[in-house]
């Protein structure tokens, strides 16, 4: 009995040792979005964002992923487009300066992880699965993955822009984020 308890305690301690808090490092991190314009991919990025993993165990999963993105840091590479997307029909950045993702669970799927949660953007909340690969490197790790969202679900591109003829409905989100240990 005592032996069994000791074993459970040991395992719990081992698990606790693996679960840790992680925080994104801006250098070497990238959060890209790929929209489409007249059926041609248009790459862009959010230059300022913060990702945190709390109590994530790279062997067992668990914990939570929280990402906060500064919408005003969006850069689509074209000056006129950058000006346009600040407006009400697009990100309405003045009213919605932040987009946030909060996971409710992180589970394994094959050799990658799925953070299932909610993306809050421009006042809309939608369930989103964020798949990521976790690659330890040095004293940190790299989170890498991509998923697709429908811009219409968040009212990104309202009014006459809602039609997906010129600006496609799907927006690919691609990220490669350097994570360092620590809250």
């Amino acid at each position: 009995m005592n032996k069994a308890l000791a074993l459970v305690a040991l395992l719990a301690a081992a698990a606790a040792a693996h679960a840790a808090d992680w925080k994104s490092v801006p250098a070497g991190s990238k959060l890209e979005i790929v929209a489409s314009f007249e059926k041609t991919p248009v790459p862009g990025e959010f230059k300022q964002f913060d990702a945190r993993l709390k109590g994530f165990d790279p062997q067992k999963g668990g914990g939570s992923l929280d990402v906060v993105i500064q919408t005003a840091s969006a850069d689509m590479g074209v000056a006129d487009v950058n000006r346009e997307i600040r407006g009400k029909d697009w990100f309405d950045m003045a009213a919605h300066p932040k987009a946030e993702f909060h996971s409710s669970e992180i589970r394994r799927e094959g050799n990658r992880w799925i953070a299932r949660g909610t993306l809050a953007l421009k006042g809309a909340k939608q369930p989103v699965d964020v798949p990521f690969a976790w690659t330890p490197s040095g004293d940190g790790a790299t989170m890498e993955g991509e998923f697709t969202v429908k811009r219409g679900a968040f009212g990104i591109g309202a009014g006459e822009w809602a039609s997906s003829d010129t600006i496609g409905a799907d927006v690919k989100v691609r990220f490669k984020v350097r994570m360092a240990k620590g809250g």
Partner: protein
Amino acid sequence: MRPVSWDGLAKAFHWVMAVLIFVQIALGLMAANWHLSPTQIRLFFWHKSIGMLILALLALRLAWRLAGRAPALPADMPAWERAAAHASHALLYLLMVALPVTGWLVNSAANIPFRVFYLVPLPPIVAPDKALADDLAWVHRGLFVLLALVLVAHIGAALRHHFVKRDDVLARMLPWRMQ
């Protein structure tokens, strides 16, 4: 011996290009004055696609022209008219190259991804530079004004040949023969 008339290929080049250029001018003027909207993007898309088509057709047309099968001008044309004819034709060819190329430069400097007729990705020919894109857009508009003036002279001269001088300069370029 120079031919007396333009051959079918030359006529096809001339009239297809004429139609494309007028469509192109209409699209360009509409796109430039439309508010930023999906419609404006679509207008620019067709303007850019047709511009690249004109540039491609022009390469073939210039090859034909440089092969030297153009009919001679009427023997009784005064020297200044010959000079004006050669200068305006050279200018037209030059503008048919310069307008698509400056448009391509504007699109490159503005960093706008573009696929010609949705098919062929157009590679950029200069690095993204907003200020350069704005300057090049003015060059593009300036060349358009010049083109409009040369087209007025070209069409005016063709009509003068036909109705005033009563020679066959216009008739020999028509897709059908006129008496």
